[in-house]
């Protein structure tokens, strides 16, 4: 009985310690999903700008939170010729030196979608539409 009680306490301590660690990086505040541009000027599209140099993507691939129905304006600069593809929405645009890919669309479908280049197979970003 005593051994069991000690184990119970141990588990609770371990559980708390583990979750305490995971709590330190604060979860994305809910407001992050509402882009500032949308609140100030509803007609303006959500701007996402990405630059490719060689196999280097900047800003590094991350997740862009988009509200369902929001307009997205994706601009990609690249130092090599390629094709940009938004999965799920199946939108493509050519890109190359001096020729930016500009893709504008309304995010009507919820889900997690990758934006990729076809030739080099780079993931540029992920769109989380909710």
């Amino acid at each position, binding site marked *: 009985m005593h051994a069991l009680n000690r184990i119970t306490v141990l*588990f609770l301590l371990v559980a*708390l310690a583990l979750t305490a660690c*995971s*709590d330190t990086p604060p979860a994305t505040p809910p407001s992050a999903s509402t882009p500032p541009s949308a609140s100030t000027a509803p007609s303006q599209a959500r701007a996402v700008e990405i630059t490719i140099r060689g196999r280097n993507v900047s800003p*590094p691939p991350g*997740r862009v939170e988009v509200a369902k129905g929001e307009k997205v304006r994706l601009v990609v600069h690249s130092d090599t010729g390629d094709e940009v593809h938004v999965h799920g*929405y199946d939108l493509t645009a050519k890109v190359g030196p001096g020729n930016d890919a500009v893709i504008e669309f309304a995010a009507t479908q*919820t*889900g*997690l979608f990758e934006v990729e280049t076809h030739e080099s197979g780079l993931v540029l970003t992920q769109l989380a539409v909710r």
Partner: protein
Amino acid sequence: MIADFLAHGVGGRQDLPVPFGYALAGALVALAATFIILTRSWPRSRLRGAAAGRPLPPGLEKVLDAPATRIALRVLGLAFAGWVLAEMLFGPQLGRDNAAPGTLYVWIWVCMPLLSVLLGPIWRLISPMRTLHAGLSRLAGQGPDRGILTMPQRWGMWPGAAALLAFVWLELVPPDRGSVPAVRLAFALYAAFTLLGALLFGSGWFARADPFEVYSTLAARLSPLGRRDDGRLVLRNPFDGLDATPVVPGLAAVVIVLLGSTAFDSLSSAPQWISLTQGSGSKLLWDTGGLLGFVGVLGACYAVCSRRPREFAHSILPIAVGYVLAHYYSLAIIEGQRTFILAVRGGRDTGLVVLDTTLANPGFVAVLQVVAVVAGHITGAVAAHDRATRVYPPGKVMAGQLPLLLLMLAYTYAGLTLLFAA
């Protein structure tokens, strides 16, 4: 991400009704509490395995077991295989317009095993390769269970584990995995591997080596429908079905491949992993190493902590199934529909596929992920505890399974953290 053209739904930390840290703590406490309650109130084995179950009404059993029903299922399987073949050969040749990739990666790989949890070993009943082999055996005038050679018993399910590892590599690593030629090659290799093996070793090969049958039959261990040791079709406690999982060599390896590959899929779709690997120019090597590393580390931890890997492998099965459900549920809803629409269209381009995502709304997906992971682990803890009461002497039951419990706590922590990584 699984065959990169496939989309998961969203269901992240911010979609949970409670902060993620609370959900994680709750999951760990629930599992630890289960273990403590079990050690106090479940001193002797209660499960009866294959002997348990309440027979179905005789009329229903007769219909389900009727030769006509079985033949109808086989015809259905053949028709399905014929359609997939036609779609691959004559359908649109662009991966995202063709229904075959979704059929392989979503219907067969994700939906079929999850349906097996509800209905029983579906793949075994419809398997077109089994039907083809049975037909060939009949033409040759010999029983399908006889082969040219006898398969060594010690192989157990190792051929299936190897085939599953090859499949998850295809599913998660090569950049072209969603293309029609890749899917065609995968089906061709699958057909050759299962049919040649069955010709060599007899139809017993399918149960040990066909990756889809191995997966589906194991998932069906958790089904409330099962066959009792006297041959009757019964409704039974899924814990009894799970306990009756045949203890064979390679069983643990199969389950660890399923668990490790699902965990790796969570990792490889996280933006952090993508940034780390794609700049290097050798993403293929990174991803291959990552997948093998996950399977290897999970397997090594399991082998050490379970002490008797073969006898406790069934307790990891519900954990793997829970994690698969958590990770692939939204994908099954979204991409299952897309595949169906592509299939019905039959290659005619009628514009963008519009999907109903009501069942994959973020709040529901997020809660389901936590519930599935926790339920999987609690089921595993119960199965392991009952087994421990039989394999360990009375005084050593708790001490004997403590390392396995610690491992399950670590799996829960790591699994939920990976699922909610981004």
